[in-house]
């Protein structure tokens, strides 16, 4: 259960106030949680890096998450740390990486053709609540 990971000894109290606006500079996402985006997908995932032991384990986990093969992931992977600097995985020991990584961007080998990729089709059309059009009209919903 997800709630099981949220144990009191792991939290910094300021980060987990539900009350938005009183969050820390890291937006309540401290303790090793990192966003993961795949270049071709609109929807990102969040990963708790502290449960992983190595970069390879990270790549395997990401492959599983996005329904692709490990070999589809072009490594090293680019990421942003807490200061916003862009880095590459492998530049630092994994234990340092998990302390600072905030956003990973996964680039894939477009030669790979996993059946399960892009299970979230239709996302790009979701923006206006109606298929296909990029126009915004009186019924646009994502203003």
């Amino acid at each position, binding site marked *: 259960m*997800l709630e099981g990971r949220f144990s009191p000894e792991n939290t910094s109290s300021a980060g987990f106030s539900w009350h938005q606006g009183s969050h820390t500079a890291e937006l309540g996402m401290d303790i090793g949680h990192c966003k993961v985006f795949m270049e071709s997908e609109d929807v990102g995932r969040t990963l708790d890096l502290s449960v992983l032991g190595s970069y390879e384990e990270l790549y395997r986990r990401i492959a599983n998450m996005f329904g692709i093969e490990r070999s589809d992931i072009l490594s090293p992977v680019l990421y942003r740390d807490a200061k916003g600097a862009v880095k590459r995985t492998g530049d630092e020991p994994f234990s340092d990486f998990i302390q600072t990584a905030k956003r990973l961007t996964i680039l894939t080998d477009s030669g790979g053709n996993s059946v399960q990729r892009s*299970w979230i089709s239709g996302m790009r059309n979701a923006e206006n609540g109606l298929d296909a059009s990029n126009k915004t009209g009186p019924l646009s919903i994502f203003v």
Partner: protein
Amino acid sequence: MDNPLANPFAAEGNECNDPATFFVKVYMEGIPIGRKLDLLAHDGYDDLIRTLDHMFNTNILWGAEVDRVHPEKCHVLTYEDEEGDLMMVGDVPWEMFLSTVKRLKITRAGLF
């Protein structure tokens, strides 16, 4: 607080222990009119999904299920967070989700 039954999420200055609310907009792909839902009226993801399934008359894929194929569940629950990113619901602890969620989006899942 002296009262052990007082709602820990009650807004400051709230004297009479009215339950705090946190309404967010919820949109389903293809339906221009959204709904609103009180996240604090739910005790976790399961509860939230149950409400959304009922509200939108569908089956929603979320969290760990997303990593496996579930063809009969044809919608995916995502949320827009404070940084403006669109994220999958269910990856972080519930309380952390509450601290960053801005709105919910339900979109069709497709496999090809």
